[in-house]
C-alpha cells in the first residue's frame, strides 16, 4: 500500500472535499473541517441521516456489513458529484492494543469499489502507529499530496488539533455538568457514529429526555484517562473506541444510575465487549439495545421506558 494514495497537482480553482456525515465524521468533524479550512479547501457535508440515505446505503452495501457502514455508503452516495474529493481515512491503530475496528482500515478500498465507475475521486490519510505513522504525519502527507507544502500542512494540522482539543474539552465539561443533576442519569454507551446519528442514536437520546432522564454520552470523556481506566477492567482489550467507552463507564460508575449499551447490528467489537461490560460491572443496572433498521419504535420505547421505570422504582419514585 503506497502512502500517497491520491496524487494530484494543486489547481488554481478552489478544491472541494466532501465529508460523509457518518462513522468517524462524528469523531473528527472539528479536526477535519478546521484542517481543510486552514488550507483554504472548501468542505461540503452530506445531510443528516434520513430514511432516504439509509435506503440508498443499504442498496449499495453487501448484507453482512454493520448498519453504520450501510449508512456511511448512503452518505457517500449523497456526496457523489458534489465535490472534487471525498475524504475517507484509513485508520488501523493508534498503537499496541489501540486498534480500530477493521472496517476503518478497509473503508477507503471498500467505498472505492462500491462507487467504482462513478468517476468520483477519493482522498485518504493512513494512520498506523504500529508502523510508525501517526495522525500528524498522515495528515501532513495528505496535505502534501494535495499540492500544499509540508509547512502549510503542518501549520494546518497544529491549528486544527488546537480547535479539536478546545471543542472536546468543552463537550466533556458539558457532560460533567449534566452529571450534577438530581434527575435519573443514564449513560448511553455507544460509538459516536451511533449516539450522534440523527436517525439511529438521537431518537434514543430524545426518548430518554422525554422520560425525564438525563442521558450522559459515554463517548464524551477525557480519552486518555478513559484508556488508562479501561485497563482496570480488562488489560488486554484491543479496540481503541471500546476501551474509551469502558473507561468512561468505569470513571463515572458512581455518578450514574444505569447504563444503556447502544449498538448497531452486527457489530463485532461490541458483541464481545458489551458482554464483558455486563459481567464486569456487576451491580450497575445495564440494558443492551441492538439497533437495526426496524421501523417500529414500540419495542425500543418499551425497553427504554421499563429500564427507566426500574431505576425510578429503586429510588422509590414510582
Amino acid at each position, binding site marked *: 500500500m503506497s502512502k500517497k494514495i491520491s496524487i494530484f497537482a494543486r489547481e488554481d480553482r478552489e478544491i472541494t472535499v466532501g465529508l460523509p456525515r457518518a462513522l468517524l465524521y462524528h469523531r473528527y468533524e472539528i479536526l477535519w473541517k478546521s484542517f481543510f479550512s486552514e488550507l483554504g479547501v472548501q468542505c461540503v457535508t452530506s445531510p443528516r441521516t*434520513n*430514511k*432516504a*440515505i439509509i435506503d440508498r446505503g443499504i442498496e449499495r452495501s453487501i448484507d453482512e456489513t454493520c448498519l453504520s457502514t450501510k449508512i456511511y455508503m448512503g452518505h457517500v452516495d449523497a456526496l457523489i458529484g458534489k465535490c472534487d474529493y471525498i475524504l475517507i481515512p484509513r485508520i488501523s491503530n493508534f498503537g499496541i492494543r489501540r486498534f480500530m475496528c477493521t472496517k476503518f482500515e478497509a473503508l477507503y478500498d471498500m467505498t472505492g469499489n462500491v462507487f467504482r465507475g462513478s468517476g468520483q475521486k477519493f482522498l485518504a490519510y493512513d494512520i498506523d502507529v504500529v508502523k510508525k505513522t501517526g495522525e500528524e504525519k498522515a495528515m501532513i502527507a495528505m496535505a502534501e499530496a494535495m499540492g500544499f507544502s509540508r509547512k502549510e500542512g503542518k501549520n494546518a494540522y497544529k491549528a486544527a488539533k488546537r480547535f479539536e482539543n478546545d471543542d472536546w474539552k468543552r463537550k466533556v465539561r458539558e457532560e460533567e455538568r449534566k452529571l450534577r443533576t438530581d434527575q435519573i442519569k443514564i449513560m448511553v454507551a455507544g460509538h459516536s457514529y451511533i449516539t450522534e446519528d440523527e*436517525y439511529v442514536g438521537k*431518537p434514543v437520546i430524545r426518548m430518554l429526555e422525554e422520560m425525564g432522564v438525563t442521558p450522559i454520552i459515554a463517548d464524551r470523556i477525557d480519552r486518555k484517562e478513559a484508556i488508562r481506566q479501561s485497563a482496570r477492567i480488562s488489560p488486554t482489550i484491543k479496540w481503541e473506541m471500546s476501551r474509551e467507552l469502558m473507561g468512561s463507564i468505569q470513571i463515572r460508575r458512581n455518578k450514574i444510575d444505569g447504563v444503556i449499551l447502544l449498538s448497531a447490528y452486527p457489530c463485532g467489537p461490541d458483541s464481545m465487549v458489551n458482554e464483558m461490560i*455486563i*459481567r464486569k460491572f*456487576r451491580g450497575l*443496572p445495564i*440494558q*443492551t*439495545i*441492538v*439497533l*437495526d433498521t*426496524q*421501523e417500529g*419504535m*414500540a*419495542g*425500543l*420505547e*418499551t*425497553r427504554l*421506558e*421499563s*429500564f427507566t*421505570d*426500574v431505576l425510578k*422504582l*429503586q429510588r422509590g419514585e*414510582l
Partner: protein
Amino acid sequence: MKKAYLGIDIGSISTKGVVLDDDSNILAKEYLWTEGNPMGAVKKLLAELEKQFDKDEYEIVSTGTTGSARKLIGVMVGATIVKNEITAHAVGTLNFYPDVRTILEIGGQDSKIILVDNGVVVDYAMNTLCAAGTGAFLSSQAKRLGVEVEEFGKIALQSKSPTQLAARCTVFAESDLVHKIQMGHTRQDIIAGLCRAVVNNYLNNVGKGKKIVSPVVFQGGVSRNEGVVHFFEQQLGTKVIVDENGPLMGAIGIAILGRRARARKKFDFAVEDMEFRTREVSCGRCPNNCEIICVYRDDVLIDSWGNRCDKGALRAGTRGESVK
C-alpha cells in the same frame, strides 16, 4: 360509593383486564385473545368486566393500560396512566408475593427477567429486539408439528429423552427441527426438546450473568406450558411458582400503579358503543416519510403518533380524512 381501579393489559396474543378495590381485591377479571384486533378485544373485555362487578357500589376512578397496544388503547379508553408491561408485572407480582426474589416472564414476543431484593427491583433484563425463544416461536413450531400449542406441555412431559435443538435463533431452530423430524426423532421428544430449548435460550440470553434466587415466580403466556415449567425447575434446581392469576399480573400491576398515581378520571363504559378507527398516513414532508398512525373516535381525530419530527405533528380534533 367505593372506589375501584381498572387495569387493562393488551398483549400481542392476549388481552387481560381486572378491576381492583382499595385493598387490591379482584372485583372483576377477564382474559381473552387479542386476535390481531386490540380495539375489538378491549370492547369485548370491557363488556365482560362490566357484568362482573356491582356498578352501584363501586365507581372506577382510574384506568391504566399496559402491554404492546397500551398507547392505542390508552387513547381509546382515556387512560389515566399508560406504562410498559415490565413495570406493571413487577408491581403486580410484588403485590401478591412480597418476598419474591426472581420473576421470570415469557410472553408472546418478548421475555424478561426481574430480580427483586427486599421488595425493590434491583436488576432486570429483556430480550434484545428479536423474538427467539418466546411464545411466538413455540406457536410457529406447534403449527409446523401440527399440534395445538396448548397441548405442548402435556406432550413434552411424556418424553424420556428430549431432543437436542438449537434455540439461539428461530431460523436455526426451525431447520434443526426439520432435520430431526426427518431423522426419526419422535414428536414428544422433539416437543420436549423445544420446551427445553426455550428454557436454555432464556437462561443463556435474558438470564445470563444473573443470579437466580428462589422464590422464583414464572409468568407470561408460556408459563402455562407445563413442559417449560418442568425444565425451568430442572435447570434451576428450585421450585418455580406459577400463579393462577399469573397472566393477569400485568393488568393488576397497572391497576395498582393507577391507584398510586394522582390522576383521577371516572371511567365510562360507554366507550364500548363508540366507533374507533385507525388510519395510517405516510407523512411525506421529508425524506424520512414516517408512517403516522391516526386514531379516530366517531370520525374525529383524537391522537396520532409515529412521526419522528414536528413536521408530522397532527392536530387532534380534526374531522374525518381532512388530515393528509
